[in-house]
């Protein structure tokens, strides 16, 4: 391989605190140097004045749909979508068909990823067999096969005794448990947040307490067991308070928030657009403010997309019948950058929440710029204005909550181990 250089960009590496205009050299797929007077003459130079170079983003909550639902997404298309959004490492959830509750499925996904994916794919395995919330999965075997965490995601483990045992056992194999907190009975057959908008639309809603009750329970169980609990896609203001208090009390808890919960409120359900339907639901402006504050003060450790592709025909039905979820990999960056533009978050902290923060809580070797490490990088234009039309999405599905929306900030290029996986043309690295 060749040696090439990105010159004149603002380089942000939250892990080391670096935020400076420096050059960065890549040789044989690895970061070979960072600084102002780098030695040697690179074979190619990318002039990047006014742009940012950041570690490739890390998503710890992605639904890749392979095996079993390749019409929605497969590992290759999901990886292309990730690359287009600046992500170089993604962690896929277990609700495939068959469910990823066995080392064989974990190995299959990793093999398919090696053969077909243009970004790094890590595997989150089921916490219970068949996602049924009854018998725990073979976590030791799964961890040995490569599972980085355990989660039943949307199939919330409602039995507190099972959840306790899952946390205890996962602690034994040194992996976090990722919890999708929704009380399924209190949620019932609802699609949206219970409030004035749901009332006006005539749609049944579920209150924020459907989430907070389970957050509170799982925090208590984390306290009991000493296990690492990671709360997925926090959506309610009260959940942020509960997590903040638990962290203050020393409970081993981390949390994530999705870009759509950071950007949108339940007001968008008014047109019955099924791309506003996800679990947990979009909530009030007050909740959204608390999520932004929580992300800013570190109560919420990271951003995770909950990228959940669904085919157009599946979403093209009545609101109550549509499946939950939206794609999110390709629009995550500008949503988070909005918080930088609004001065809620420093640029370095915004990048931290998408790189080393999620990587460290799953203990992935990713999300930072180290000499000698694989050059997983993204080149960002923080000021580029663009509009999401839909067809440009690399995901196999286009169920974005942001169709038609204008964004500020865009990923221009993504490299995995020094190889351009998004935005490259023939002449440049």
């Amino acid at each position, binding site marked *: 391989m060749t040696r090439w250089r990105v010159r004149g960009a603002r380089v942000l590496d939250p892990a080391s605190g670096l935020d400076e205009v420096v050059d960065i050299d890549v040789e044989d797929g690895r970061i070979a140097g960072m600084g102002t007077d780098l030695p040697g003459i690179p074979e190619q130079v990318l002039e990047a004045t006014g742009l940012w170079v950041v570690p490739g983003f890390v998503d710890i909550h992605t639904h890749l749909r392979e095996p079993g639902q390749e019409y929605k997404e497969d590992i290759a298309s999901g990886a292309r979508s990730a690359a287009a959004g600046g992500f170089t490492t993604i962690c896929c959830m277990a609700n495939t068909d068959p469910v990823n509750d066995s080392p064989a499925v974990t190995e299959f996904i990793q093999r398919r990823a090696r053969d077909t994916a243009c970004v790094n794919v890590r595997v989150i395995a089921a916490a219970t067999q068949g996602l049924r919330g009854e018998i725990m999965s073979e976590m030791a075997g799964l961890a040995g096969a490569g599972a980085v965490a355990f989660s039943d995601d949307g199939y919330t483990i409602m039995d507190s005794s099972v959840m306790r045992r899952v946390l205890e056992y996962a602690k034994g194999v040194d992996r976090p448990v990722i919890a999708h907190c929704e009380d399924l009975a209190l949620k019932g057959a609802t699609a949206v947040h*219970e*409030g*004035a*908008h*749901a*009332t*006006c*639309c*005539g*749609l*049944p*809603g579920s*209150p924020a307490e459907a989430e907070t009750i389970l957050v509170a329970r799982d925090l208590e169980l984390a306290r009991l067991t000493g296990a690492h609990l990671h709360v997925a896609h926090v959506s309610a203001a009260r959940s942020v308070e509960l997590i903040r208090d638990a962290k203050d009390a020393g409970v081993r808890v981390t949390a994530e928030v999705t870009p759509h919960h950071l950007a949108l409120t339940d007001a968008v359900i008014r*047109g*019955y657009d099924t791309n506003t339907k996800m679990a947990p639901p979009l909530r009030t402006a007050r909740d959204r403010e608390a999520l932004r504050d929580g992300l800013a003060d570190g109560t919420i450790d990271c951003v995770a997309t909950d990228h959940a592709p669904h085919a157009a*025909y599946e979403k*093209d*039905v*009545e*609101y*109550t*019948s549509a499946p939950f979820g939206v794609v999110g990999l390709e629009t995550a960056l500008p949503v988070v950058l909005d918080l930088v533009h609004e001065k809620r978050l420093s640029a370095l902290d915004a990048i931290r929440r998408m790189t080393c923060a999620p990587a460290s809580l799953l203990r992935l070797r990713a999300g930072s710029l180290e000499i000698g490490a694989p050059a997983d990088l993204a080149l960002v234009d923080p000021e580029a204005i663009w509009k999401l039309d839909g067809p440009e999405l690399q995901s196999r599905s286009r169920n974005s909550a942001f169709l038609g929306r204008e964004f500020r900030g865009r990923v221009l290029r993504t490299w995995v181990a020094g190889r351009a996986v998004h935005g490259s043309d023939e002449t440049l690295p």
Partner: protein
Amino acid sequence: MKHLLGIEPLDRDEIGQILDAADAMLEISQREIKRVPTLRGRTVINLFLEPSTRTRVSFEIAAKRLSADAINVSSSGSSLSKAETLNDMAQNLAAMNADVLVVRDRTAGVPAMLAERVRIPVVNAGDGAHEHPTQALLDAFTVRQSLGSIEGRVVAIVGDIAHSRVARSAIHIFTKLGAEVRIAGPPTMMPVGIEELGVKPCSSIEEALDGAHVICMLRIQRERLEGALFPSVREYSRTYGLDLRLLRLARPEAIVLHPGPINRGVEIGSDVADAEPSRILDQVTNGVAVRMAVLYLLTGEQA
């Protein structure tokens, strides 16, 4: 007005325009020959994916009095899934050159979805717990007919507000027309955030009826909700049923409305249903006039 998907999107003038047109239509309905050629050669499709004989017949009579062809499509017996039904229906309608589509569905938002797919006006004939705009229009029309005006009147809506499209549309129309709207019902049937629509939630039916000009009683879905949202029909009728004793709390000239069909002895006692203040049969008559007005305004004016 391109579609009638709900009362919420309408302004006061648009509502007034429909009510004024309904005055003229009521006059037609009282003639010996109850038919005018206004919509001759036009086709109204009544797509009733949730059965409702009363509303469908009302739309059918309205269309026929305007000389339009009314075609009824119901979903019963169809083996298609809902998604296929909707897509299929939209395409078929486009191919059949229908002029207006009247939709009733058990799911909120279906008329709005169809309105995006077809190029003809869509009338919401009731969608889930969302809206039932022609019901609200006939309610307002009946109040205007009985009391002369709506502005400043006190309207009490009693019953299952949470699951009622009739309640939502009534709340929108009466608040837009300047009435004071009160609601009452079991706390389990009071939807969250309803006060943001400008209504006054009351803690008892007595409080709601005190000095009211208009009492709208809602139909209770006893089959679906008994046990879950209220303990028993008996307790419901004792606590929230309208009888002559409660009626005396309202103004002497107060009128009673009900969208029908009535659960006699549940939300409304027989003594009240058949009493002088009841306008329940007038509502049925006025329903045809209001629906004629809606069909006329949505299709006739483009002729």
